[in-house]
C-alpha cells in the first residue's frame, strides 16, 4: 500500500459500518481521496462500493465510522445536504429531466435570476460556453432526452462543474458509451481534475481505470482490502485482489475426485455452439454432460448471465445452435426449456426469483404446479406433501410453509428456489450465482446439494463470481470473456490461477501466474467488464 503523497485528503472515510436487516454490508470500509485526483473504486457486485457511496452522499446513514470532507467532520442526512456541501453524483441512470432543455438541466434549481424571473439569456449563454469548453457543440435549447447517453453524461458533468462541486462521483458512467464517447468523457474528467477537483470513478472496465485514474481503492466483502497508486498496481494483481483469491489447498485434493468424476460422466445433455446475441454474448461454445458440474467463469459483464438466459430460451440467440440430447433444439421460451427438462435459477433472486408476498408453499410449487393439478384444480394435499418433503430434504428453516417467502433469510429463500426447480425433476440445471448474497453456512449447503445432484446424474452448469467457490463446486470450468469462450479447463487443469489467467489474458497465454504478472506488454487485454 502506497502512502499518500498529498497532505490532508479532501475526503477521508474511516471504519465505516452499516448493516441491512442484521446482515453487515460494510465493515471497516475506508476511502480516502485527495483533491486533484481521479480515484478508482472497484470491487465485485455486492462488495459494498455502492453502499459506501450512498453513505457518502447521504442516501444511507452509517452505523459507525467517521467521514471527513473538506477538513470538517460531516454527517450528511440527505443527498441534498451532500450536494450542498459540494459532492455531486452522476449515476448510471442519469438523473436529468428528459423533456427539459440542456441548459435548463444544467442550471436546474439554481437558475440565474433577474427581477425575480429566470434570466434565460444568461442561462443559455452560460450553458453554451460550458459545453463548448468541453469541446461539445449542442443546441442548449433542445430537450436533453433527445441526445445520446454520452451527451447526457456531459450535461450531468456540466451541471456538476457549474455547481462548483468539490467532488464528483461517477458511478458506472461509461457502461453504455462507445469508445469515442468514453474518450470525450475522459477529457472532461481530466479537466475537472486539473481544476483541482476530486473525482471518484466507479467502473468494471479495467482498461478505463488505467487510462484515467491516479489511485485505486479495492473493496471486497464489505471491506477495503487495498489502496494504492494505480501505476504500481498491475492488472492481474488488481483482479486477484478484487476476486479475493486465496490459493486453497483443498482444491488440489479435490482434483483427483473431479477427474474421476469426469471420467465416469454420462452422455452429453446439452451443447451450444457459437451461440451469439450481441453485444453481450458473441461466441460461446460449451457442453454439459449428465453427472458433471461445469463452472461458467468470467468477470461481471462477461456474458455469463446472458449465456444462461439464451440456453434457457429466456432470450433468443441471433446465431449459433443448441443441441439437447443430441438433437438440434431451438428454444423459444422458458416454457419450452422447462418441458425439455431444463431449470434456471436466476442470479437476481429478488427481481426474477421470489414472488415476495406469496407463501413458501406457493413459491416452491410454482413450476411443478401443473403436475400437482387435475383439470386445472390444485391437489392441495399432494402439494403440501411435496413442500414438506423438500423443506426437510434441503433443511429450509422457516416457521410454516404458509409464511410469505420475503420473511425468510437469503439463504433459505435460495433453497426454496432450488427446490422449486428440483420439484420439476429436471435433467439440466442452470444455476446463475447460486451462492450469491447468502451466508457461509447456506453457501456450504448449496454446494453440497449441487454435488449430490451431480452424483444423482444431473447435468449442472453454474456460475460464481467467487472463483474459490466455483473451483470447489465445479468439476471443470469454461471461461468466457466479452461473451466469448476463451478457455475450457478440465479437472486437473482447473485452478483459480488458471481461470484468472484466462480471464486476464484470454486463454492465449497459458503461462504461469508469475510470468503473466510481470508481462507488461500484455496490458490492455483485460477488457470490457461492466456491470449489467
Amino acid at each position, binding site marked *: 500500500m502506497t502512502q499518500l503523497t498529498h497532505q490532508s485528503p479532501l475526503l477521508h472515510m474511516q471504519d465505516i459500518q452499516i448493516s441491512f436487516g442484521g446482515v453487515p454490508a460494510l465493515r471497516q470500509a475506508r476511502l480516502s481521496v485527495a483533491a486533484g485526483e481521479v480515484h478508482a473504486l472497484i470491487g465485485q457486485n455486492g462488495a459494498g462500493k455502492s453502499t459506501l457511496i450512498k453513505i457518502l452522499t447521504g442516501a444511507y446513514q452509517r452505523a459507525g465510522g467517521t467521514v471527513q470532507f473538506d477538513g470538517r467532520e460531516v454527517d450528511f442526512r440527505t443527498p441534498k445536504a451532500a450536494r450542498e456541501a459540494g459532492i455531486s453524483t452522476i449515476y448510471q441512470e442519469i438523473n436529468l429531466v428528459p423533456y427539459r432543455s440542456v441548459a435548463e438541466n444544467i442550471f436546474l434549481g439554481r437558475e440565474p435570476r433577474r427581477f425575480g424571473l429566470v434570466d434565460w439569456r444568461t442561462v443559455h449563454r452560460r450553458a453554451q460556453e460550458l459545453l463548448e469548453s468541453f469541446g461539445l457543440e449542442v443546441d442548449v435549447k433542445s430537450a436533453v432526452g433527445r441526445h445520446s447517453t454520452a451527451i447526457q453524461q456531459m450535461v450531468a458533468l456540466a451541471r456538476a462543474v457549474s455547481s462548483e462541486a468539490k467532488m464528483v462521483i461517477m458511478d458506472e458512467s461509461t457502461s453504455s458509451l462507445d469508445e469515442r464517447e468514453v474518450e470525450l468523457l475522459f477529457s472532461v474528467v481530466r479537466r475537472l481534475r486539473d481544476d483541482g477537483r476530486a473525482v471518484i470513478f466507479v467502473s468494471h472496465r479495467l482498461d478505463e481505470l488505467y487510462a484515467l485514474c491516479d489511485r485505486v481503492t479495492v473493496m471486497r466483502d464489505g471491506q477495503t482490502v487495498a489502496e494504492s497508486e494505480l501505476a504500481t498496481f498491475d492488472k492481474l494483481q488488481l483482479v486477484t485482489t478484487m476476486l479475493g483469491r486465496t490459493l486453497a489447498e483443498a482444491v488440489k485434493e479435490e482434483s483427483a475426485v473431479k477427474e474421476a468424476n469426469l471420467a465416469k460422466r454420462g452422455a452429453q445433455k446439452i451443447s451450444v455452439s457459437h451461440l451469439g446475441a450481441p453485444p453481450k454474448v458473441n461466441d460461446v461454445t460449451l457442453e454439459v454432460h449428465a453427472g458433471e458440474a461445469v463452472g461458467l467463469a468470467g468477470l461481471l459483464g462477461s456474458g455469463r448471465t446472458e449465456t444462461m438466459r439464451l440456453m434457457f430460451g429466456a432470450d433468443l440467440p441471433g446465431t449459433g445452435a443448441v443441441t439437447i440430447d443430441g438433437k438440434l433444439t431451438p428454444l423459444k421460451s422458458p416454457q419450452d426449456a422447462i418441458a425439455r427438462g431444463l431449470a434456471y435459477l436466476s442470479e437476481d433472486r429478488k427481481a426474477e426469483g421470489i414472488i415476495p408476498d406469496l407463501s413458501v408453499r406457493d413459491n416452491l410449487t410454482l*413450476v411443478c404446479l401443473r403436475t400437482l393439478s387435475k383439470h386445472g384444480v390444485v391437489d392441495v394435499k399432494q402439494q403440501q406433501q411435496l413442500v414438506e418433503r423438500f423443506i426437510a430434504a434441503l433443511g429450509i428453516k422457516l416457521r410454516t410453509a404458509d409464511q410469505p417467502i420475503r420473511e425468510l433469510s437469503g439463504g433459505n429463500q435460495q433453497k426454496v428456489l432450488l427446490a422449486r426447480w428440483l420439484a420439476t425433476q429436471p435433467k439440466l440445471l442452470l444455476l446463475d450465482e447460486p451462492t450469491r448474497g447468502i451466508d457461509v453456512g447456506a453457501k456450504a449447503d448449496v454446494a453440497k446439494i449441487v454435488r449430490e445432484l451431480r452424483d444423482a446424474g444431473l447435468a449442472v452448469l453454474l456460475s460464481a463470481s467467487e472463483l474459490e467457490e466455483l473451483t470447489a463446486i465445479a468439476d471443470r470450468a469454461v471461461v468466457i470473456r466479452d461473451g466469448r469462450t476463451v478457455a475450457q479447463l478440465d479437472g486437473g487443469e482447473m485452478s483459480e490461477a488458471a481461470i484468472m489467467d484466462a480471464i486476464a489474458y484470454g486463454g492465449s497465454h497459458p503461462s504461469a501466474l508469475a510470468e503473466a504478472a510481470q508481462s507488461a506488454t500484455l496490458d490492455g487485454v483485460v477488457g470490457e467488464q461492466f456491470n449489467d
Partner: protein
Amino acid sequence: MTDELIRNDAVAPAPVAAVTVKARRRIAIQREIVVLLAMLVFNLLFTQHFWSVQTFNVNLTQVVTIVIVGIGMTLVVATGGIDLSVGASMAISGAIAPMIFMHLAGPWGIALAFVVPVLAAALCGVFNGWLVTRLAVQPIVATLVLFIAGRGIAQVITDGSLQAFDMPAFQWIALGKVGGVPFQVLLMFVLVAVFAWIVRKTLFGQFLLVTGGNERAAYLCGIPTARVKMLAYILCAALAGLAGLISISVNSSSDANVVGLGVELDAIAAVAVGGTSLMGGKAYIGGTLIGALIIQLLRYTLLAHGIPDAAALVVKAAIIIAAVYVQRRQR
C-alpha cells in the same frame, strides 16, 4: 437425500402443516370484516327499522352490480392492471340484450339474450387484453380506449334511443326471488364463492397471483403470463356484461348513456377497501364483497340519518383514502 427427491414420485408420507393457506387468507381480510360488523352493530342500535328483511334486501340489491363487476376487477387488479372500461362493457351488453329478446320471441330469444351480450362484452375484454399483452400499453391507458369508445358503440347499436321493455322471463335475473331472497343477490353470492375458489384452488388462480406478484419471475418459471392477463381481462369484461343485464332488468329499460355509468370507480373502490393491493399480486374476492358492502352500508347509514347523498360521496372518498393508507403502511 436429494437423489431420492429427484426420483421419488410426489407421494411420500409427510406431516401436514397445522396452519393452512385458507386460514391465512381469512386473517388478511379480518380487519374489513370487523369494520363491517361494527357498522352493522351501529345501525342495529341507532337506525330505526334496520333489522328487517326489506332493509337487507335493499342494501344487498344495491351492491349486486358493483360486486359482480368488482370480482372481475379484482382479477385484473391482481395482475397489476386495472380496467376502466367495465361501465362501457355493461352498456354494450345492456344495449344488445333487448334487441334480441324483443325481436326473437320464445325461450331461444331469452337464452340468446343472455349469452350473446355477455360474449360481446367478453370481446371487449379480448380487445383490452390484446392492447395490454401484445402492444404492451399501460392498462389504465389501454382500457381508457373502451371507456371512451364503448359507450359510443352501445349508442350506435341502439341508435341512441332508450329501449323500454317488459319481459318477466328475462328480468327474472334481477326481479325473481328464491325463498324470499332476490335471485340477483343469490347469484352474486354464488359468483363470489366460485371466483374465491378459483383464486385459491386452481392453477389459473395461482398464475394470476404470480403474474401480478413478480412478472419476470413468472415468465422464467414458464408461466404463460400473457394468457393469464388476457383471461383476467376477458373474465372481467364478461362479468361486467352480466352486470349490465341485471342493471337493465332492474330498470325495465336500457339507456346506453346510463347503464353502468361510474361503476368502474365503485368497483375499484370496493376492491381497494376489500384489501386487494392495487400494486398486484393479491386477490381477495371475499374482500371485494365486504368492501362493497362497507361502502354501501356507510351510504345507507348516512342517508338514514338525514345526511344528503352528496355528502356521502365525500365520506366514501375518505374511506377509500383510509383503506389505501392502511395498505401502504403494511408494506
